[in-house]
């Protein structure tokens, strides 16, 4: 990698790369600080208890915020992350795909790689779907093969319909 620099680039070394990152970080902080600072200077200041509530225009929250959420929410969150990550991988692939596609022998590989990646993820989706994990109210699946799903302990997060 180190020896495959683009034409005209200067080898700044590892420290050089990190210096770039540092500059980037500093500029980021400066930009955000500048925007907030300028806003602070320009806007009128009128503090008001309503502004400090959790949902300014919504209901008043009651009780502790340390409640246990139903595990379903986490499942949905997990699915979301799976698809999210999938998209993140798709973007860089899509960017270089156009360049790589014409290269003989490589185009097909690049295409099928992504197909395989996507199909593995869809297999996962299919698996949880069939297993009933996408149902908001999970059913106990009766398997014809004589399963012992009924033996699953009662304290599990399972609700019969």
């Amino acid at each position, binding site marked *: *990698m*180190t020896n*495959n620099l*683009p034409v005209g680039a200067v080898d700044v*070394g*590892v*420290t050089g790369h*990190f210096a770039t990152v540092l500059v980037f970080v500093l500029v980021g902080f400066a930009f955000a600080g500048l925007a907030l600072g300028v806003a602070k200077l320009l806007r009128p200041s009128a503090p008001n208890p309503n502004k400090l509530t959790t949902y300014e225009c919504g209901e008043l929250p009651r009780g502790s915020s340390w409640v246990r959420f139903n595990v379903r929410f986490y499942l949905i969150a997990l699915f979301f992350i799976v698809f999210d990550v999938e998209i993140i991988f798709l973007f860089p692939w899509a960017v*270089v795909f156009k*360049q*790589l596609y014409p*290269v003989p*022998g*490589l185009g097909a*590989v690049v295409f099928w790689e992504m197909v395989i990646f996507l199909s*593995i993820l869809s*297999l996962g989706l*299919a*698996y949880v779907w*069939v*297993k009933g994990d996408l149902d908001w109210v999970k059913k106990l699946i009766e*398997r*014809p*093969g*004589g*399963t*012992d*799903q009924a*033996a*699953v*302990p*009662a*304290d*599990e997060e399972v609700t019969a319909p």
Partner: protein
Amino acid sequence: MTHFEMPLDATSWSVLLPYLVIGGGGLLVMLVDAFVRTLKKDHLSYLTLCVFLASIVVQIAVHPGEGPRLGGMLLAGDWSRFFNYLFAGIGIMTTIFATGIYDRDGRYRPEFYPLLLFTVLGMMVLAAANDLLAVFLGLETMSLATYILAGGVRGNVRSSEAGFKYLVLGGFSSAFLLMGMALLYGYAGDTNFDAIARVLATGGGATILVTAGSALMLMGFGFKVAMVPFHMWTPDVYDGAPAYVTGFMATAVKAAGFAILLRVALLLQPQLAWAWYPVLTVFAVLTMSLGNLVALVQNNIKRMLAWSSIAHAGYLLLGVVTLLSPAVGDPARQALARTVGESAASAVLFYLVGYSLMNLAAFGVVNVLSNRGGEDADDINRYAGLSRRRPVAAATLAVALLSLAGIPPFVGFMAKFYLFAAVVKAGLVPLAVIGVINSLVSVYYYLRVIVVMYMKDTEADSYDGVEWVSVATAGALAALVLYLGIRPDAFHAAAASVIRQLPF
């Protein structure tokens, strides 16, 4: 970005084949579980066994040659093949043990099989890794699946605790490892082992990066192999997880951890032996001593075996220490680097195999009983009179334990012999003495189980029923333990030839 390496050609496919078989097999098992409605309980386990066997067949049939492949990501050759066989073998045993339990207790857990296959896939990648990215990929694939396996008994508090504990601590250790890799990358400017080796050989640069990085990586690997002081999770997780998973973790995960630890130790040896050598010496001594001492007072056989597995990690670390020893101190000794390194590394490989055999034999028996006995099933005192009611199971466990204690003519003795021989060869006699004193201490707690099984009378609440497939499998392993204890040479020579392919 004008140059593109051709990532996949014919040789690459042949390198990838065993990984594809295991990974694809995992997906297949998963799908069959989900979609085939007429499935009997055993079918998934048969399918899993077929996948493992297929991967072995592929390994035997396809020889992709040696050296780094796939753009330097994986190391092909005997080294990876050796570990692939080992993992597939352990996988087969674990499948058999697990299946036996499902049949009996009625808690059918079909997701176990794909997870097992994915774990093995991760281990295979980890052992063959020739790039920091591949290391992390393999490690995480392995770990994520193992977290779920450890917590696999849904509704069992201890199993859930095991899975959770392993997950949280494992996450920490992965973070350390990743940070270490980042620092190492910062030093070398590359993630490929060969490139890193080149940079390390020239020396110079910001050595603080590589020192700190390697320390963090050592923590990460130390966690996986249960090295003191990163061992805290081990007893709880080994105790809480179902016995077949514990057996799997104690053998396969440990083997994978040592595979990569050896590779990294070899990689970093030119520049970091001075740091790793003293640190690992202390850790090795601590690991085996603490493991053995705490194992002395355990009443639960799984906890006892957990601490004993910590102790065995200590012996194995002794091998890594020996590997590093010629690179420090007297330059005259560096001439020994190759011979000492080879004997130490091949001793570690032999030890890993021997340890896997005897430990699986032990866990195979514990697994059957653990399942039959209710709440305190793993209490050692419940094994009273076992030799009368189940002579084969008791004899198998006895052979496994005697072998673990390092008593001839079992493989445990030969493994220790090769290991301590390498230690003494490197001139580290005090370490060898500490090692043998430790194995002496260990004799006591292994004997204790045998005492209970053979010399105490049956109590009223005994185990009943026999899961003969598991017991027969464990018995076959015990026979292998005996055979390799008497005729270890061919196998050790094979291990040595595997080592000779590695870069020193």
